[in-house]
């Protein structure tokens, strides 16, 4: 009897350790089919979205999205702290604690940038232009392969 209880307790605690909620802390998170930045994209997750994250392996978390899709996200795209979204967004959280508020997109945000633009203090034309430069995973894979760079074999 005691052994059976111990087994059940271990199984429950293992389950808890295996899956924990985490928040996406990048604007366009890409859930990959394999633990690699060059892996195929199985789902995209927005800033602040919650995922269930398992035990990380070499910086990669196995994750399950809210709509049940599974894949991998790099640790740099995830935060253990909850991210309370801004009011008006679909995930808006009310009554956020002060720690959550610090992650709520307040402070140095687009509102401050808009204020600087309005005052004509900074010109963001080239910042926006360079931010629009996009390179997809296929182009990177080809660049690495053609250049005989073995990192692309991962």
């Amino acid at each position, binding site marked *: 009897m005691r052994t059976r209880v111990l087994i059940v307790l271990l199984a429950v605690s293992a389950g808890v350790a295996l899956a924990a909620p985490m928040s996406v*802390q*990048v*604007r*366009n*998170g890409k859930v990959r089919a394999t633990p690699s*930045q*060059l892996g195929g994209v199985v789902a995209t997750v927005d*800033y602040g979205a919650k995922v269930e994250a398992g035990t990380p392996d070499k*910086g990669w978390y196995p994750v399950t999205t809210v709509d049940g899709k599974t894949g991998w996200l*790099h640790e*740099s*795209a995830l*935060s253990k702290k909850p*991210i309370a979204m*801004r*009011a008006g967004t679909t995930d808006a959280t009310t009554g956020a604690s*002060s720690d959550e*508020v*610090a*992650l*709520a*997109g*307040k*402070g*140095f*945000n*687009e*509102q*401050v*940038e808009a*204020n*600087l633009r309005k005052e004509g*203090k*900074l*010109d*963001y034309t*080239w*910042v926006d*232009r*360079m*931010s629009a*430069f996009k*390179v997809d995973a296929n*182009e*990177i894979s080809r*660049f*690495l392969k*053609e*250049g*005989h*760079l*073995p*990192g*692309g074999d991962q």
Partner: protein
Amino acid sequence: MNERRLKRISSVTAGMVLIGSLLAGLLSSRSEGKPPADRDPKRDSSRLGTPTVVARRTGGGLGRILSGDQVESILRGAKAVQKTWENLTPEQEYYIGRAVAAQVFQTYRPLDRPAANAYLNLLGQSLAVFSGRPETFGGYHFLLLDSDEINAFAAPGGLILVTRGMVRCCENEDELAAVVAHEICHVEKKHGLKAIKQGRLTEAFTIIAAESTAQAGNKELAALTREFEGSVGDVVKTLTTSGYSQGQEREADAAAVGLLQRAGYPDNAMITMLRRMDKQLANARGLGFAKTHPSARSRADALRKTIKDTESVPDPVRQQRFSAALQPILAGQ
């Protein structure tokens, strides 16, 4: 003694306890003699947590003296003191980085060459994949600057700028990869954010904590914008004038070597690039990279302890695409 006088005395006493605790926390944090950015936030958190504990312990008494809002405000203020650059979110880092890049463009004009910029982005993003921090809020983006100065800048969040002079200092893709890898590693290690003065962050986090709604009011927005501009100014000054510490440069060099290895580039490209830079900078003492970085020779010497300093023959495909994409720049056009 009347009730009003008693209230005033206990109010002053409670205030002194709080202020004393805050000062004690601050003084003990200074006693280690480390700059705030280098401190262990966990240790800071426990040390500077004292005022919060004191306030809570005396909460019953304070509750009769100060209003709930006032106590909450003091607690928020005490909590904001604990915040360092490490508490900046990737989103906040992103907006700081954008403003840093915009400010750098006030001094350095962007180079509008689509083919060259496309190649630089392909190279840079291929390297970023192997970084210890492949994901940032807005991703990594690269741009050439129309300047003969030998220099490169990494704005927080992943906006990386490389001068025409720096490109011309590189003889092949491997050496340019070494330059770009070094800058990516500054972003990975958040060296730019560490340049922000602690006082600005404390001010900013106090304003943020005091706000109960997501949208700041006009007064708070003006105050936040002021702290934001100051923070951006701190980073730009470090990038363009004072430079990172020697320790941070060496840390970025060592991380860049690992990044090059993971991508498959020869790691000795870091040394050949530094050697070439050393020669070029001999004629440009006090300008650009020479002004903001430790000597290229000393950096190469430090790397020789961990990697072999051997000349390698550049891969012909990499050499060809490097020359094709950057030909006008390399030819001095």
